[in-house]
């Protein structure tokens, strides 16, 4: 058969073509190899490095929060979780990748570990079924699956990461499991820091609570080194506003890992976590407690007295007017922040947000209400400072006055009657008695003017100036989220927002804090404190000191003066056409002095006389307020009857009147008369303050 072709039995050109194909393909591969390894080598090298390196965030400790006496308001406590690291078990926990064989084919040693652990912690060794649905819905600590199933899921995801089997177990049980660690290979105890609030609901409105990083802020917090699925951030209160101070900074380790996520070694020096700073608040927990008891006690008393739920919310704030330190801040109703410590339970949160009295809402700083007669102070000092009346000028209160006014510019004028709260009238009133008796007619006259007496009236524009000088109509800047700014209307505001002209009657009722005027409870306290502190507006604050983790003071307390109405020209001067002249002026110190005397007279002779007569504290001053309101709740109950509207109860007071060290405001929603509901609360808080002071002095 060897007769075909001398050289080869195969056609040479056909063989050469195949060889050519070999060279072509191998040449192409060599080119691709060169492209991948040499041309793009650095890119792939970087990808390979990314594969094997992982940044591990080392959790830091959040700072504690203390009250002014060092009493703990927020701290971290250890919570123990039982974990299993699948790779450290004495056998394969996922038998050939088949979940259905978990109960039959599982290694005997592994089953032994599961059984022993199950007996200790009560989680069944095997329960439930592994399928797409259960795996997708699986969440550690909140599952009905058994140990075998949980470990199976963990083993298929990250066999070297500890997986939580049972959470928040007893410390003693954790110790027991630790001591049995030799018999339980793969089982571990994870210590997790959980926020604890020893004072709970008493200070919840101030301290707040934590929650997981919100979806919308993940980038922000990730940039600060937080791990969204692990670390928690402040959601409310001081926890939220002081997040940056309390939060600290997570540490970081750059480690080499293999494909299953097992850490092999540190690639660089680890960055140690920096613990958060501690905060000392200005709050005195004892006074806070007294204030809360006084508020709730008073509300309960009247609800029982009337045999109906008349008032369901209120607020009390106590402050040192000379420094701005908030000593107590009670918002009622409130919530229990310890229930949010581990996670925010859906049913509890639902319950809170569907409660019509809004427990999550801070009634002391976020609620806006008509202030009523406590707002007579800006009218009163405005009238004196602007020379509308002299202190000794007497105006008559016959119980009601009638003025001619028109509701629209084109309508004919009509007689309109404004009444005093005292139907028979107060008779002739000078300035100081007008304030002390909270004489409505006197304030109509000095605020809106009364031609028959020859009083021009302060007018709406100038009233706004004095209200703002006393802190109304703007945020105070307290370190709590969600502060409201209140509302001090001007004629312009009414034209824009209500589409109506400002009427003389609007000035009348604005002069006594009704109508469109709204303020927060804190603003009322600030207005009183400015006058009590001789015109100095001290920044209200909850933060006394910032301490580092070792307890050294990082930022000591310094009272901050916002302005002094007797020195800083905060009052704009208007001409006769109510246009700004561009000039500004101060409030005369004698006006402020008279205002203090008037507030003292409220207690000794005026509307609050009865409340303070038998008090241990006989050197206080104050002002009552009974503010008519008609909101959606009152309307729904059909309470808004003209001439007989429901009323909020207000009172602010301070002591000692000549050298004040505490100023307190109380507000009770639908509480009725300020003198009978709010004033006793303030009295109780001020009495408690001096009692505590005596106790501290005795130590």
């Amino acid at each position, binding site marked *: 058969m060897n007769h075909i072709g001398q050289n080869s*039995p195969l056609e040479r050109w056909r063989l050469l073509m195949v060889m050519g194909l*070999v060279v072509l393909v191998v040449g192409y591969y*060599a080119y*691709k190899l060169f492209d*991948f*390894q040499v041309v793009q080598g650095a890119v792939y090298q970087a990808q390979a490095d990314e594969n094997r390196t992982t940044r591990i965030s080392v959790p830091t400790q959040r700072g504690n929060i203390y009250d002014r006496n060092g009493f703990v308001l927020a701290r971290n406590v250890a919570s123990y979780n039982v974990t299993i690291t699948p790779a450290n078990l004495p056998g394969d926990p996922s038998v050939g990748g088949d979940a259905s064989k978990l109960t039959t084919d599982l290694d005997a040693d592994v089953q032994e570990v599961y059984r022993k652990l199950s007996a200790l912690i009560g989680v069944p060794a095997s329960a439930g079924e592994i399928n797409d649905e259960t795996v997708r819905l699986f969440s550690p600590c909140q599952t009905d699956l058994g140990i075998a199933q949980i470990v199976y899921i963990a083993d298929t995801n990250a066999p070297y990461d500890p997986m939580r089997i049972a959470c928040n177990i007893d410390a003693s049980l954790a110790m027991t499991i630790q001591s049995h660690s030799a018999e339980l290979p793969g089982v571990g105890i994870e210590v997790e820091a959980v926020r604890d609030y020893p004072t709970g609901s008493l200070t919840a409105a101030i301290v707040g609570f934590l929650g997981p990083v919100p979806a919308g802020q993940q980038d922000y917090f990730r940039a600060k080194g937080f791990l969204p699925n692990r670390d928690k951030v402040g959601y409310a209160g001081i926890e939220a506003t002081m997040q940056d101070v309390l939060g600290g900074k997570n540490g970081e380790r750059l480690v*080499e890992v293999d494909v299953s996520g097992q850490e092999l070694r540190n690639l660089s020096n680890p960055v140690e976590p920096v613990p958060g700073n501690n905060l000392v608040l200005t709050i005195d927990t004892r006074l806070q407690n007294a204030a809360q008891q006084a508020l709730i006690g008073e509300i309960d008393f009247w609800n029982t007295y009337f045999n109906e739920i008349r008032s369901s919310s209120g607020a009390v704030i106590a402050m040192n007017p000379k420094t701005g330190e908030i000593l107590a801040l009670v918002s009622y109703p409130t919530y229990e922040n310890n229930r949010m410590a581990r996670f925010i339970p859906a049913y509890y949160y639902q319950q809170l947000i569907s409660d019509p009295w809004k427990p999550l809402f801070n009634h002391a700083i976020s609620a806006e209400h008509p202030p009523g007669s406590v707002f007579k102070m800006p009218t009163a000092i405005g009238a004196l400072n602007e020379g509308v009346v002299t202190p000794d000028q007497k105006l008559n209160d016959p119980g009601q006055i009638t003025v001619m006014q028109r509701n629209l510019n084109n309508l004919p004028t009509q007689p309109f009657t404004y009444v005093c709260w005292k139907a028979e009238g107060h008779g002739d009133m000078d300035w100081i008695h007008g304030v002390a008796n909270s004489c409505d007619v006197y304030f109509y006259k000095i605020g809106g003017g009364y031609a028959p007496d020859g009083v021009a009236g302060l007018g709406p524009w100038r009233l706004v100036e004095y209200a703002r000088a006393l802190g109304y109509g703007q945020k105070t800047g307290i370190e709590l989220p969600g502060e409201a700014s209140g509302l001090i209307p001007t004629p312009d505001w009414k034209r824009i927002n209500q589409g109506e002209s400002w009427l003389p009657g609007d000035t009348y009722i604005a002069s006594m804090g009704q109508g469109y005027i709204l303020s927060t409870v804190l603003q009322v306290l600030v207005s009183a404190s400015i006058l009590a502190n001789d015109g100095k507006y001290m920044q209200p604050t909850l933060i006394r000191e910032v301490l580092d983790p070792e307890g050294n003071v990082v930022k000591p307390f310094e009272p901050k003066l916002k302005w002094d109405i007797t020195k800083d020209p905060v009052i704009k001067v208007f001409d006769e056409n109510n246009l700004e002249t561009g000039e500004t002026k101060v409030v005369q110190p004698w006006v402020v002095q008279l205002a203090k005397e008037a507030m003292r007279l409220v207690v000794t002779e005026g509307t609050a006389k009865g409340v303070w007569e038998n008090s241990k504290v006989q050197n206080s001053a104050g002002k009552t307020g009974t503010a008519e309101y008609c909101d959606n709740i009152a309307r729904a109950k059909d309470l808004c009857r003209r001439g007989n509207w429901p009323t909020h109860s207000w009172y602010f007071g301070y002591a000692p009147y000549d050298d004040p060290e505490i100023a307190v405001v109380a507000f009770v929603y639908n509480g009725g008369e300020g003198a009978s509901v709010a004033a006793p609360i303030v009295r109780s808080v001020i009495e408690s303050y001096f009692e505590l002071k005596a106790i501290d002095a005795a130590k």
Partner: protein
Amino acid sequence: MLQRETWKHFDFLLFGGVIVLSIFGVAMIRSAIAGNETLAGLVTRQVIFVAISFVVIIILAMIDYRYWSSMARLLYVIAILALVGIYIFGTALFGSARWLDTGLILIQPSEIAKIIMIIVLADFFARTRERQRNLRWIISSFLLTFGVVLWILLQPNLSTSIVIFVIWFSMLWVSGLPVKYLWIFAGIGLVLLGVFIGLLFSGVKIPFIEDYQLQRIVNFLFPDPNARHGNTYNVEQALVTIGSGGLFGQGYGSSPQVQLRFLKVRHTDFIFSAMASEFGFVGTILVLALLVFVILRCFRAASLAADPFGALIAYGFGVLLFFQMAVNIGVNLNVIPVTGLTLPFISYGGSSLVSLAIGIGLVESVIIRHKPLEF
């Protein structure tokens, strides 16, 4: 048969190349195991298979290859029986029944079938040398091939089926397939491709093609960039592994991609990537050159062979080596979809290595008995 004279023409260079590649393969497998305890035994097994392979080469080199020509029909029957035997005694691994458990070792009959088909087809084309190159000749050679391939397709094992068809076609070509038929083949191929794509989008079940095979093609054409496992992930990691090798490599046993097991199926399908990563461009080109050298030595044997049967055996085996190498490296370089073909001599696999050794033995037998121009 055992004359001293015989060994004068033994191709020591070819044998040497195979030895170097096989030993290098063992070293590479050892590195690719990367501390995986369940795979640790594979190195020893491979060493044993390498030793067996050397013996197999020597034995087959000693046997006159012409002997196999007379055995061709018997071998053909044995191949079919072994393949059918899988359905009766077979062991299913990784989804398809490809293994025959002999009690001692698992044998993959389709590996042996490749070598048998080289002998059978070489015999067929050598015998039909005088015949006209017409359609009847082509179809009868195709049916001969299909008689074996059918059982492999049914396993299902598409890649081995393709390998055998490639051997058939390459032999058809070298035996003088008229060029006009080449165009006809190209036309048929295009039509089949069109039908295939049509079926692919119509969603009808295509015979002999499993869903996972379709998925491989889809993955190749439209990769899912977020895949964390499966073929797309494997190929992507293979590229990262190759690329991270650079010019001179990370060094033996020290490529993080390999040693930290980011690269999957490291000791078989993706051993090329592991090698590229640890030995770099320079080292890989050297190994590639050695493989090409072995292939070209087979073609040399083909052109020197004493008769067409011997020439076709050497040539067919050369094509087999080339095709397997080209497909395996192509998968590693992501130029063709993932298939299960291994890298000749280097990838782990006993059946594969032993059948390759049989092939080399046959080629040596051919070259030993060539009729040189000795006067």
